[in-house]
């Protein structure tokens, strides 16, 4: 399955072809150098980019232009980078966060 739009009736043929390698959650993929990580991952069929810290629900891109922070991932050890704004480089190591433990009970109901 190729999700890339290689030819377009108005925009013409895709010009970029400089593919580089990267890993996402320890799996290897290829993407175009300098395209946003979100595009590289979607082109590879990857939709889930992170898990909600508290509920663990799957999350992917939402706004795609840096406003919503839903696509934040860890890039080369640096946390909370927006996949939609970060240009892909050769050898990048990208990781999803995991659901965080919530050892503190929610007391709000009892405090009413």
């Amino acid at each position, binding site marked *: 399955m190729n999700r890339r739009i290689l030819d377009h009736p108005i925009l013409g043929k895709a010009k970029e072809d400089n593919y580089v390698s990267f890993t996402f959650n320890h799996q290897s993929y290829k993407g175009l150098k300098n395209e946003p990580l979100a595009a590289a991952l979607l082109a590879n069929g990857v939709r889930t980019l992170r898990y909600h810290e*508290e*509920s663990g629900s799957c999350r992917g891109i*939402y706004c795609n232009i840096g*406003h*919503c922070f839903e696509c934040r991932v860890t890039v080369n050890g640096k946390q*909370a980078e927006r996949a939609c704004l970060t240009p892909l480089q050769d050898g990048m190591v990208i990781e999803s966060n995991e659901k965080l433990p919530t050892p503190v009970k929610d007391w709000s109901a009892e405090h009413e």
Partner: protein
Amino acid sequence: MTEDKMIVCRCEEVTYKELLETADKYDCSARELKLRTRAGMGYCGGRTCRNMVDKMASTMESNKRTQTTLKYQPPIRPIRFGDLGGHEK
């Protein structure tokens, strides 16, 4: 999933039902609704849900037209503690 579980604030996973009930119970302003439920207080800074939280508040502030009801405060994008502390790169 039922409509009760529909999320309004994606960051903090605050539901429509929770906001409706809170607005109803406390008859509150947008700011109070935000503080009681955490809707709009998550990672994105309320950019995604602020207008929805505003709409769900049951009391309209009197000066609503001339002033945004939910305040904007810096930083308008999250900053890492390391950057705030001016660590060496």
